[in-house]
């Protein structure tokens, strides 16, 4: 409005020389300057507020996850003097591995505990005593004996995994002032724990179980092995399929396809696919890959196929953008010395576009790593203890494992859930860091 006035004033009084008109404009500009600067400052302020809020929320998120999950990276172990009683383990003395395997190590464990706390005599007291040690301890003893049969008949100090409730007590997560009936550990059990602690028989160590075990009903025994391997196999399938297909599609659309209605239609649909909710891909996978093609349920193969469908649009769009950003002069240069279209693309355009394509791929992979919904549809939510040995074995993936643990009522799973989230976030950050590094490493040089 004001500028128009200035201009028409100028032209109406054309006889007035430009020199006379100029100070007037300068005054007007000066008048508006203050307002403009204030607007600019206000704008900056909004930006700073927005960023501060984002950082605050992010900090809050990380703080709550880490504070809750960090304790799960440590596990409590109890040292017991185990009496490898031959009459219990191998009464015949044949040392037959079969017999050693089937022996009652729970009995061995119960006996050893009773030796330590002779005052626990009643049936329920004995059960309470056994509940201090993880259910997995008897298998730990079994494996120990099967591997070293010479232990039979000796007494050994062995570190055994404590039960999850003991772990919570040792980590101070249980409010001991609470009435006994309101907590999982009775006063008597807490007393035993204190006694063990006083005897230096309790120790906290790095929780390797978290990475070496599959899922379990017992929080102290539950691990991410199956989920990590499942995620790995799933991403492997996704990468092996979506990268070549995505790059090939992008190269064809960008470099070879004629620009017509059909390619426009394809382009629109690729963009549409990128916006399709992922659960729809899961339903598709269920209907096509499992029901129609008869592929196994819960398998990383099917998960990878479904995630391929989901990441393809991302990769194609990123790859096309990378190809578009290669200057046409490079193509002209190659064509000008007589390179064929294919040579131009493979020798010059692709190498220059590769960093952008890889970045897009890694971001797509990171998306796939965090994806849950479509994998629920194809049965990757199953409770799986044994690690998969290939892409067709049943498995679960990290985010689904997080969902499963978050859904479990035991208090030990609260920390486990947060720990699993930390592992997942760790991988995501790692992948994004690789993407950034790649971009830096292959910084455009023309």
């Amino acid at each position, binding site marked *: *409005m004001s*500028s*128009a006035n200035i*201009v*028409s004033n100028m*032209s*109406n009084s*054309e006889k007035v020389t430009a020199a006379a008109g100029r100070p007037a404009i300068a005054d007007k500009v000066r008048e508006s300057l203050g307002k403009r600067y204030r607007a600019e400052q206000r704008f900056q302020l909004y930006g700073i507020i927005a960023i501060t809020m984002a950082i605050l929320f992010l900090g809050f998120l990380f703080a709550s996850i880490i504070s809750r999950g960090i304790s799960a990276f440590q596990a409590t172990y109890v040292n017991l003097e185990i009496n490898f009683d031959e009459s219990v383990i191998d009464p015949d003395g044949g040392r037959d591995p079969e017999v050693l395997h089937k022996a009652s190590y729970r009995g061995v464990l119960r006996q050893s505990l009773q030796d330590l706390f002779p005052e626990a005599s009643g049936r329920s007291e004995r059960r309470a005593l056994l509940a201090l040690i993880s259910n997995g301890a008897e298998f730990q003893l079994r494996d120990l004996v099967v591997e070293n049969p010479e232990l039979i008949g000796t007494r050994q100090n062995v570190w055994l995994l404590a039960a999850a409730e003991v772990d919570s007590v040792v980590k101070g997560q249980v409010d001991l002032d609470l009435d006994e009936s309101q907590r999982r550990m009775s006063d008597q059990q807490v007393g035993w724990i204190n006694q063990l602690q006083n005897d230096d028989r309790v120790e906290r160590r790095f929780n390797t179980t978290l990475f070496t075990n599959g899922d379990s009903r017992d929080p102290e025994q539950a691990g991410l092995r199956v989920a990590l391997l499942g995620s790995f196999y799933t991403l492997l399938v996704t990468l092996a399929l979506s990268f070549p297909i995505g790059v090939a599609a992008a190269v064809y659309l960008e470099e070879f396809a*004629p*620009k017509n209605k059909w390619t426009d239609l394809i382009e629109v649909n690729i963009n549409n696919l990128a916006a399709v909710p992922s659960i729809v891909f899961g339903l598709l996978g269920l209907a096509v890959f499992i029901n129609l093609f008869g592929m196994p349920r819960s398998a990383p193969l099917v998960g990878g196929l479904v995630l391929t469908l989901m990441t393809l649009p991302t990769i194609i769009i990123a790859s096309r953008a990378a190809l578009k950003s290669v*200057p046409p*002069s*490079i*193509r*002209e*240069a*190659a*064509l*000008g*010395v*007589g*390179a*064929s279209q294919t*040579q131009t693309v493979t*020798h*010059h355009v692709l190498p*220059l576009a590769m960093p952008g394509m890889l970045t897009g791929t890694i971001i797509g992979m990171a998306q796939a790593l965090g994806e849950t919904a479509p994998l629920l549809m194809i049965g990757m939510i199953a409770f799986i203890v044994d690690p998969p040995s290939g892409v067709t074995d049943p498995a679960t993936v990290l985010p689904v494992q997080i969902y499963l643990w978050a859904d479990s009522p035991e208090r030990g799973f609260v920390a486990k859930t947060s720990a699993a989230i930390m592992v997942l976030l760790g991988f995501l950050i790692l992948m994004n860091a690789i993407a950034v590094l790649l971009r830096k490493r292959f910084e*455009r*040089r*023309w």
Partner: protein
Amino acid sequence: MSEATTLTDPIISAHSRVPEMSIADVELPKETVGDITADHPTMTTRNVDVFYADKHAIIDVSLDIGRNEVVAMIGPSGCGKSTFLRCLNRMNDTIDICRVTGDIKLEGDDIYSKDMDVVLLRARVGMVFQKPNPFPKSIFENVAYGPRIHGLARDKTELEEIVHQSLERAGLLNEVKDRLDQPGTGLSGGQQQRLCIARTIAVNPDVILMDEPCSALDPIATARIEDLIDELKQNYSIAIVTHSMQQAARVSQRTAYFHLGHLVEVGATDQIFTNPRTKLTEDYITGRFG
């Protein structure tokens, strides 16, 4: 609202009209004036028309490019010089909407016929572009690329020889011989353009097309390229598009003046610049078109 007031204001619009001559105002001649033929033509073009979709960008142009001569193409911006040049090595094929009709021959072979392989054509008709565009690879790789894809060298020593020779003939060898393994994009603008020329002559083409090869360069670098063009014409036929009248006068033997897609006048360079036969050419070379 402000826009509307400004535009309809009669004083403003009268005031802003440029009192110069517009290139659309003049009447175009029916036919090309002057001799379009060369004594020993390497390339001949007859009745070439080029369309970008509906836009008629080149209208009935015929022109020869002779052996061992430099043909300069001049004309106002947008008159179709680049378009015409790009027809000569079918670079226009890369533009989907571009359609070329007419008769263009290289040593008697129709380059738009089915038998002509476009890769072979571009090996025989090299091109140097307006902006230096070396590959983001080493200097050596830049020059070696053409001979390598065409299989011109039997072994590594032969390839090295071709690279050295080409750099030598492009007048660049002395400046870069110690750093052949460094990126070609690290050279100065003038050096990059000479590298692009070396890359073109490494394939040993019959014809070299140059589209404003000096427009991104300073006068010293320009002078070096002009000397180079003068030397190269002993072995090649050269067609050069330029905006600089002085450059056309210095390097070329024949000059073609384009105007709005028409080839208005062709003749010996001396004659065009001293004694143009059409009013349009005269107006252009005396600088009457903006």
